[in-house]
């Protein structure tokens, strides 16, 4: 067994790693749009940032972020899942862990790495071996019954984001009831409404995330 003196003698060779935050959710719910909206907000708050995107067999989301002009393209890494997107964020997240490690080596001051999952279903969850905290993004246009379905993604995430709130009147969704049901199934865990395209709610998402993982 090691002793306190042993540990002290070993020095502080390890240092607190960059915070790692997952962003998952169904196809088209607005994960990439949320990241695009978060990047300038996080930069305003002085956060040193990098992103890892996951796609099935392409690097579409990474290329979209690299071309956006919002972030140094070198700070965006792509993982091709090659299979169900949840396999590389939950069952075997080693590809993503390696991508995060590599970003930390290339950018030693990086404080926060966002991991965007490929679009998946309501059962998608992140391994806590990969991320410290994770967001699940659903959208109003996907149907107001999503929270009632109690998918593991909506139940277990640290923050549930309901995106495209502006579309509610156009798709016949009773938004207050959807939010109420989301809060009911999640107990005390937070739910935030966003319109990522126009930035509504994005600052609140950033603040909630930073409070949870950056000290």
């Amino acid at each position, binding site marked *: *067994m*090691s*002793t*306190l*003196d042993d*540990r002290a003698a070993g020095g*502080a060779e*390890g*240092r*607190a*790693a960059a*915070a*790692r935050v997952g962003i998952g959710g169904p196809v088209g719910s607005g994960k990439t749009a949320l990241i695009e909206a978060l990047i300038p907000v996080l930069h305003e708050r002085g956060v040193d940032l990098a992103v890892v995107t996951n796609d099935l067999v392409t690097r579409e989301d990474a290329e979209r972020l690299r071309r956006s002009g919002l972030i140094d393209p070198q700070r965006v890494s792509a993982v091709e899942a090659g299979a169900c997107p*949840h396999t590389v964020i*939950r069952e075997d997240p080693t590809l993503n862990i390696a991508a995060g*490690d590599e970003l930390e080596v290339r950018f030693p001051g990086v404080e926060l790495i966002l991991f965007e999952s490929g679009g998946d279903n309501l*059962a998608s*969850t992140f*391994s*806590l*071996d990969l991320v*410290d*905290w994770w967001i699940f993004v659903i959208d109003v246009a996907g149907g107001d019954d999503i929270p009632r379905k109690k998918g*593991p993604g909506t*139940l*277990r995430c640290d923050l549930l984001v309901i995106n495209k709130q502006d579309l509610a009147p156009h798709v016949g969704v009773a938004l207050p009831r959807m939010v109420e049901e989301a809060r009911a199934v999640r107990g005390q865990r937070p739910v935030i409404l966003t319109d990522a395209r126009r930035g509504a709610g994005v600052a609140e998402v950033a603040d909630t995330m930073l*409070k*949870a*993982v*950056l*000290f």
Partner: protein
Amino acid sequence: MLLVDRVLGNRLDDGLADRLHHMEHHGTVEWLVLPAAELARRRFRALTNRGAEVAVALPRDEPLTDGAVLLLEPDRAIVVRVDAERWLRLTPLDLATALELGYHVGNLHWRVRFEATSIEVALEGPEETYRARLAALGLDTRVETRLLQPDEAPC
């Protein structure tokens, strides 16, 4: 708020055990109780049993275990205590049910361990939720369920 960026040792380590035992008698040890499923997080905030907020930010290769000592001062220590994980034992009554149960448990991505004639599921929510799901799949009458007592749970 107290920031913790390294684990100082384990409460059972030489040089720590006696000191912490003594401090416990003087009521100066605080406990940070964490669910087993949350131990993999490297960054999080939590409250000790005395309501003190602790922000933990550990290196990726620093394991957090039951008994991890996070703070050790002359008159105050903070030690991690892991909440025992709850396990539900599922025992199918025949081979066909066993195959069906295995298929569904895999499809539901439940975290399991295998026993000779049973599957044990780590509960990450209310026990009733798991029983309800079995009932919805028509398995409740063909699978015996029993919540394991803490001393039966796997290490």
